[in-house]
Each structure stands twice: as structure tokens, then as C-alpha cells.
């Protein structure tokens, strides 16, 4: 039994089931990120943990206490909202202590808690201002402060960074991570941004269409995605997914695919795919696993060569993205900035097949 248990939780509106038997056990001090496209049910799940939406079936328990039907304020949780939801008519200080006031905490204790948290977040000088007078980043801090003051069992974050500009978002991301490392609190964090999910979490639940597609550490999710959805959703640019056929050569499995000219090329698998001989699969390769030969990962035991024509090159500063056609689909390679390639050129790409994965084209589940 975990610290926060989500057991077979289902949400339906009338006949429509929007969340299907979600089952996650969160340990104390864990940072769980729920990530997925909009409408995948992640916010609904968060609202159910908070008690803002009812649970249609299953149960949620915090510290061993089932909280179905318990009022949000009695679950000892705190929530940071996307819009921050600061009360516009109250000062920062009043905003942060409103919850304590509602719970009947005496004024001196409230002030003490406020001072402590304000210092931690470096917002002591803002306490008498109204939210309207704050910058986006400051509001974000106040919203977190309001959550921290409560000293809750579980923190819930609902896309807290999505209203910030790109630069500030990165800064606040680091800030949240530092805070978590320092306080070791249990956090459930909802986002649609896969980078936020990767950087912040100790564990990720990738969700789509009301199902948890995969639950695992960031590394597991990234390296061994459970299915095509997870593979393409996590990582940017997305993992290349190209149709291929498994062929046996010298007793090992190869992926047979076609290059831009329609020539068949073979890439040796590191995995054992004998069972799939002669069958079509979907081959998944991350862009950073396709490079120029000099840029290839030296520690890899399986670098395969792929000769192909370059369609487009996109220099992006640190890297250059190179697009080519593989088995009729666009595939992207991530090269060093100084890699010497040009559009139209035929180039020898180095493919790190140790990082390649294969999916069943029917079920889209990973097979190796």
C-alpha cells in the first residue's frame, strides 16, 4: 500500500466513461507526473484526488484513509492551479493564509507559517501586495506558497507552468525541482509538456484517451516506451516510427526497410526478433540515434549504416535536424551542429540499433 493509492478509479459522465480503471500507488516523497494530450483525463484524475470531482468507481486513499466523498478541505491536500487562482481581493499574505484561517488556525501560528514559507520562496517583500500587482513568476511563487503553508500530505499541481513564458518556465521548473529535493514532499503533477514530465518526475504516468498508457521512471518511459503512442508523445522531435519487415541474416534479425530511392536496406537488431521473421513491424528510432558516423555513440555495440538521400536540413543551433525518407515516411536525424550535410546529398547515416525498439503494427504495443 502506497502513500497515495489510486485503486481502479473510473470516471464517467452519464454513459461516457472518460477515465478507465486507473491504478497507481504513489510512495511517500515521490514526484508523480501525469502527462498526456488535452482530454486524456489527467486533469480529471487530479481533480478526483483533490475531491473536486466525484469518483464513479474505485477508490482513492491518502495515507491509508479512503477519501471518496470526503470534502476537499478535509483531505489534507494542497493544489496549485494553472491560473494560480489567487483571490484578487486579498493580499498575498491573506491569500496564503486563507486556508489556515478557514481551518481555524490561530493568528500567531498562521503568521509563523507564513513567514517561514515566504522566506523559503523569497517572497517576503510581496506579502502586502495584491495579486494584480505581481508578475507571472511572482504569482506562481505565491500559488506554491499558498500550498506549502498548509503543510499538506500531498501536493497537487495542475499545469502550473503553462501560463509562463518560455524562459520563466524553465527557471520555475528548476525551482520546483529544487523545492521537491529539499522538502521531499509527495507531489502529483499534471502537464501536457513532456519535457516538464521528464525533468521533474521520479515517475511518469503517460495517459491517453482515459487510459494510463505506461507508468514508469522517466528513463523507462523514454527508452522502452510501451507502445507507439508513448514513443511518439515523449521526446522532441518525436521518435521516428517507420514500417519495416523482420528478415533473418546470419542467424540474427534485421529490419528491412526502403530508402528514398526505394532500395532495400537492412539494419541489424540488437534484440532477438526471430519469432517475427517475415512479418511486418514498426521500427522506432529516436532522432538522436541517427547521426553522422563521427557523431555516433562510441559505447554502442551495434552501429548500423544507412545510406539515404537528405530531404531537408534544419540547423537549430546546438543540433542540426536532418530529414530523410525511410519506407515512405519522413524520418529525422539529430546531428551535431557542424555535421557536413546538405539537402539533396546522399549521406551515410549511423544508426544506433541498441536504442531501436520494435512495435507490433496491429496492436502498436512494443515487442522488443
Amino acid at each position, binding site marked *: 500500500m502506497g502513500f497515495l493509492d489510486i485503486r481502479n478509479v473510473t470516471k464517467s459522465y452519464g454513459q461516457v466513461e472518460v477515465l478507465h480503471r486507473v491504478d497507481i500507488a504513489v510512495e511517500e516523497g515521490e514526484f508523480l507526473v501525469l502527462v498526456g494530450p488535452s482530454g486524456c483525463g489527467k486533469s480529471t484524475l487530479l*481533480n478526483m484526488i*483533490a*475531491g*473536486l470531482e466525484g469518483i464513479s468507481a474505485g477508490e482513492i486513499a491518502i495515507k491509508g484513509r479512503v477519501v471518496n466523498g470526503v*470534502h*476537499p*478541505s*478535509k483531505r489534507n*491536500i*494542497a*493544489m496549485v*492551479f*494553472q*491560473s494560480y*487562482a*489567487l*483571490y*484578487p*481581493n486579498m493580499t498575498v499574505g491573506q491569500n496564503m493564509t*486563507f*486556508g489556515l484561517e*478557514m*481551518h481555524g488556525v490561530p493568528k500567531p501560528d498562521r503568521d509563523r507559517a507564513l513567514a517561514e514559507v515566504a522566506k523559503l520562496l523569497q517572497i517576503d517583500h510581496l506579502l502586502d501586495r495584491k495579486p494584480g500587482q505581481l508578475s507571472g513568476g511572482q504569482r506562481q511563487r505565491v500559488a506554491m506558497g*499558498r500550498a506549502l503553508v498548509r503543510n499538506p500530505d500531498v501536493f497537487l499541481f*495542475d499545469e502550473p507552468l503553462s501560463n509562463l513564458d518560455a524562459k520563466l518556465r524553465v527557471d520555475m521548473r528548476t525551482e520546483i525541482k529544487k523545492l521537491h529535493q529539499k522538502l521531499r514532499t509527495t507531489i502529483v503533477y499534471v502537464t501536457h509538456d513532456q519535457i516538464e514530465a521528464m525533468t521533474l518526475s521520479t515517475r511518469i504516468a503517460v495517459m491517453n484517451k482515459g487510459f494510463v498508457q505506461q507508468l514508469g521512471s522517466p528513463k523507462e518511459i523514454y527508452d522502452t516506451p510501451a507502445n507507439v503512442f508513448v514513443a511518439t508523445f515523449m521526446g522532441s522531435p518525436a521518435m521516428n516510427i517507420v514500417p519495416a519487415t523482420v528478415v533473418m541474416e546470419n542467424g540474427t534479425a534485421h529490419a528491412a526497410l526502403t530508402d528514398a530511392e526505394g532500395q532495400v536496406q537492412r539494419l541489424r537488431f540488437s534484440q532477438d526478433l526471430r519469432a517475427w521473421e517475415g512479418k511486418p513491424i514498426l521500427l522506432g528510432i529516436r532522432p538522436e540515434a541517427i547521426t553522422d558516423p563521427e557523431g555516433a555513440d562510441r559505447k554502442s555495440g551495434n552501429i548500423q549504416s544507412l545510406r539515404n538521400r537528405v530531404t531537408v536540413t534544419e540547423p537549430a543551433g546546438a543540433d542540426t535536424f536532418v530529414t530523410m525518407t525511410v519506407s515512405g515516411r519522413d524520418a529525422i536525424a539529430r546531428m551535431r551542429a557542424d555535421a557536413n550535410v546538405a539537402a539533396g546529398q546522399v549521406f551515410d547515416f549511423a544508426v544506433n540499433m541498441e536504442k531501436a525498439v520494435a512495435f507490433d503494427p496491429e496492436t502498436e504495443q512494443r515487442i522488443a
Partner: protein
Amino acid sequence: MSVATQDTAVSTGRATRVLIYLILLLFALFYLLPLYVMGVNSLKPLEEITGGNMMALPGQWTLDPWRQAWSTAQIGVEPTGLKPYFLNSILMVVPAVAISTIVGALNGYVLTKWRFRGDTWVFGLMLFSCFIPFQIVLIPMAVVLGKLGLAGSVPGLILVHVVYGIGFTTLYFRNYYASFPTELIRAAQIDGAGFFRIFWRILLPVSGPIAVVSVIWQFTNIWNDFLFGVSFGGTSQPMTVALNNLVQSSTGVKEYNVHFAGAILAALPTLVVYIVAGRYFVRGLMAGSVKG
């Protein structure tokens, strides 16, 4: 309506612009004309109207018509002037406006932040009640007021105006609260605030603008109402009914100057509100066309 003027991309020639200004000014005169006529003629002796020109400024300025209209003019059978009716209107308007605004605020709060199955229907039914021709309720209302012992009394009129006013006040507050982030309500719930506490501590402090709109709208509507006043006023008739009695009275000489003074007296409260808070008045009108 957006009060801020923004650049129109359209540019016009000089001659066109002169013409436009001319037409705009002409219409301004058209709109001001009755006010001017009422104003100047309420300040002259009756002979100057019957024997002179209505557009002319008073030859001899006098406040007598105003005095008469206020305190001695014959209204119906009593020479009371409009004063007691003005008081009736005040006694009716203040509670009716207050009650309907408070109720509307609570309704708007429920309908936006505590939504339930069928809430749109409930609102739709309440909203439609703003637009019915009140002739359809006159007869049963007369019966019910009689049964309640409220016929012909100020409390009766208050009841009527509250009942048929909450549709509009609910509409205002609902549209206003709809744009108020629901996340704030959720945050307050997590913080442990209940239904009334959230309303009182979170929503009400930011409801100033819409409360002004609602108060002004209700005030104007109720003050200007004639149909309910004449139907259910009895001995507590409001200002509009009294003014009409004064003007339509068929006995004696027609004292036009007194009529005009009375008309301005009847218009004064709403005019003052319009001058002081016209912005909110316009907002209420626009919201009344449902687009919120």
C-alpha cells in the same frame, strides 16, 4: 460597449466629414429637443406658453410651476402635488432594487459555480420571464395580491418588481461570474471555505461593477414602470402614474408648464443616475440584450 475609441481603418474625405458632423449634430439637436422644451417651458408662466412660442426662452422666469407640480397640483381628486407619489416611488424602489440584486447575485453564483444537471433549463426559464408581455400576468397577479392583502400597497409593488426583476439580475450576475475563474472557487474549497464563505469572501468583493449595473438597471426599470403601478398601485401609486394623471386630467385649464415641471421631476432620479453612472447604464442595456 467598449468605451475606448480605437482607430478605424476607414479614412474619409473632407466634404464627407463635414456632412457627417452636420448629421451627427442634427441628431443631437433632435434628441435634446424635448428636454429643452420641457426645461424652458417649466420655467415660464402659463400665458407665455398658450400665448407665446414654445421654443422661446422664458420672458419672465419663474419656479412656480415646479412648486405647484411638487406640492399643490391636482392629482386625481386631491391637490397634493407629486410629492407623496415621489415618496411612494422611493419606498418602492429601494427595497425592490436591493432584494432583487441580492437574490440575483446568489442565483448567478449558483448557476455558474455550482452547476448541476438542468441548470441551463432553470436559467432559461428564469430568463424568459424577463421578456414576457406583462399583460399575461396582470389578472392572476391582481387576484394573488388581493388574496395576500397586498393589493394597492407599496409592499405589493415591491413583491411584483422583485418577482419580475430577478430574471434580469440573475442574467447579469450569471454572465459576470461566468468569466470569473472557477479555479478560484476550487482553490477556496480546498482551503476549506464553504458555499456562503466563498460567496462572501471571494466573489462579493469583486462584484462591484456588476452590482452597480444591476442596481442601476433595476432602479431605472422600476422607477420608470407604469403598467404595474397603474394596475396594482391603488392608493400607493408611484410617480409615473401620478404624472400621467396630472397630464391627462380633463378638468380645468391645461397647465402645460406644471406638466413639464412634473415630467422633469419624474425623470430626474433616473437622469441623475444616467449622468453620474452612464457607463454602467449602457453596460446594463447591452447585457440586457443577452450578449454578456
